[in-house]
């Protein structure tokens, strides 16, 4: 009975995190982006500096009519948002935020593989949406999504493999247990490659070619309205949470910190994740969108070689220190 309660509690906590963190990041994005552009951002909703803007947005989305285009493939069109969203919920289960068994939703033996595999599945949602909309812009968006995923999955996997080599395990808590501070400079190239590739996989600016609103309206999500559209947006922001959490766990040492690692480890994890989320927003504000061919080129001619070099470096150092 106690076990069941424990599992239920963990699931509940993960679910609450899944629902709130993306909103917090979304609100931060509103405000940070506004201030980086010399604006104030939302100021009215909720009274104090527009803190409830996203709640208001959610209410608005929920009120809208759920439209399915006449020419669309109905079932797949309606299923796509769920396929896009759920993988991130699953991934969130496996990310440890503190030391010990208690601070992770579910210990997965091959955590790195689980996380990357399930994240890759999320892209299927965009593909399904793009195809099922019966819209040229959507199809183009879906195609670009697929091309982007194929290009960036590889460097992501390779750099994650580099960390797994360094730690000698593919379990996320195991990697954290093995972490030492000097991994930071050792794996820095891998960290950058992983983060950039993750951004590209999430289709965040400057890698938002698949949704490039000035050319293909909103890519695969063009035909979506109301709650389903909101689910896609939620998937994007949940993706940010997951990517930042993963980068924290894999490369930045998760709950390790200069002090207070015992009781306050989770604070470190959250702090690092929040910092990375800020960087995600910062990059979005700063850089213009990459063109499709630049996007492919960046992956194949820069990130993949860099990640291979990182793996080689990891291997060499690993052999030397043994």
């Amino acid at each position, binding site marked *: 009975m106690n076990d069941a309660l424990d599992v239920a509690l963990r699931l509940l906590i993960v679910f609450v995190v899944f629902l709130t963190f993306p909103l917090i990041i979304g609100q931060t994005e509103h405000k940070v982006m506004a201030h980086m552009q010399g604006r104030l951002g939302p100021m009215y909703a909720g009274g104090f500096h527009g803190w409830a803007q996203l709640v208001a947005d959610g209410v608005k989305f929920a009120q809208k009519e759920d439209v399915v285009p006449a020419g669309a493939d109905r079932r797949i069109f309606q299923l796509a948002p769920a396929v896009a969203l759920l993988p991130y919920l699953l991934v969130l289960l496996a990310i440890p935020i503190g030391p010990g068994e208690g601070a992770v939703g579910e210990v997965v033996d091959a955590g790195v593989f689980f996380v990357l595999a399930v994240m890759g599945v999320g*892209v299927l949602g965009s593909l399904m949406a793009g*195809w099922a909309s019966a819209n040229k812009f959507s199809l183009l968006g879906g195609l670009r999504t697929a091309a982007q995923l194929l290009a960036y999955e590889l460097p992501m996997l390779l750099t994650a493999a580099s960390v797994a080599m360094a730690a000698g395990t593919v379990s996320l808590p195991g990697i954290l247990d093995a972490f030492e501070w000097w991994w930071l400079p050792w794996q820095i190239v891998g960290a950058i490659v992983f983060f950039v590739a993750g951004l590209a996989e999430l289709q965040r600016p400057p890698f938002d070619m698949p949704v490039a609103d000035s050319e293909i309206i909103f890519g695969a999500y063009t035909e979506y309205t109301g709650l389903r559209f909101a689910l896609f947006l939620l998937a994007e922001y949940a993706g940010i949470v997951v990517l930042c959490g993963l980068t924290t766990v894999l490369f930045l040492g998760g709950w390790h910190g200069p002090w207070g690692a015992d009781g306050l480890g989770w604070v470190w994890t959250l702090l690092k994740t929040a910092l990375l989320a800020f960087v995600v927003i910062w990059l979005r504000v700063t850089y213009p969108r990459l063109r499709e061919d*630049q996007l492919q080129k960046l992956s194949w001619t820069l990130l993949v070689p860099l990640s291979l070099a990182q793996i080689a470096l990891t291997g060499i150092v690993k052999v030397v220190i043994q």
Partner: protein
Amino acid sequence: MTLAAATATTAHPTLTTVAAESHGFLSPTGVEVAFLLVGLVTFGAALVTVTTKQLVHAALWLVVALGGLAVEYLLLTAEFIAWVQVLIYVGSVVVLLLFGLMLTRAPIGRSPDADSGNRWAALVVAVAAAAALVWVVADAFRTTWIDLDGPAAGSTEATGASLFQNWVLPFEALSVLLLAALVGAIVLSRKAKAESSSPPLNSRAATGSSPSAPNSRNRPIRRNGRSEATRSAAGTEPTARGTASTTKETGPTEASNPVEATNPTEQEGAR
């Protein structure tokens, strides 16, 4: 199906499993029931994959079938293989498949022209292959039992140990092959830069060293220029035909430019 057939045998560990002693064949455990049900779902999805008349639906049902297979691996304690299955097959192969489908032909609704005339031959081959696989697997592993109580036989550690102790040579050969493919891809994408001898039309001299400089852009631009030329030369030729002819004449080099290639299929696809 193979696995479903194997369940009956794997569910009877002769060694130490208590479950096998207390449960007979007719009173299966929860895991066995789950295994069987997931197997049925997988089998059903696989059947729909090959029988559905909608191309993209076939690819999506394939996702279900492959995912079901991953769950079966999980139930057989092969966690590592399960996640790799999801990563490689669902995450990459199916996406590649969908990419190819959307790039070439992905109409919404049925595509009767995709029906093959030799379906019976295909059925015979499929049944024969399945029978051969089931027979070989059942025969080979008849005496191999999974010890559910000891350390999980399919865990990452066990898989890695057996891979790098007993199967190092095949593994290394495979990885060299994959690495060669990877390097080949990089070389191919870099070659485009060397081939284009004329300077990029819109490049600034100072930023030529930027790694993401859009060199492959040359060709599309020149192609557009040529299509402009054909169009103006033909004079009254309608625009659509002009584009189509251009697409045809540059067919082989099309891979880098999905946009133009999609247009014709798009028009018939989205009616």
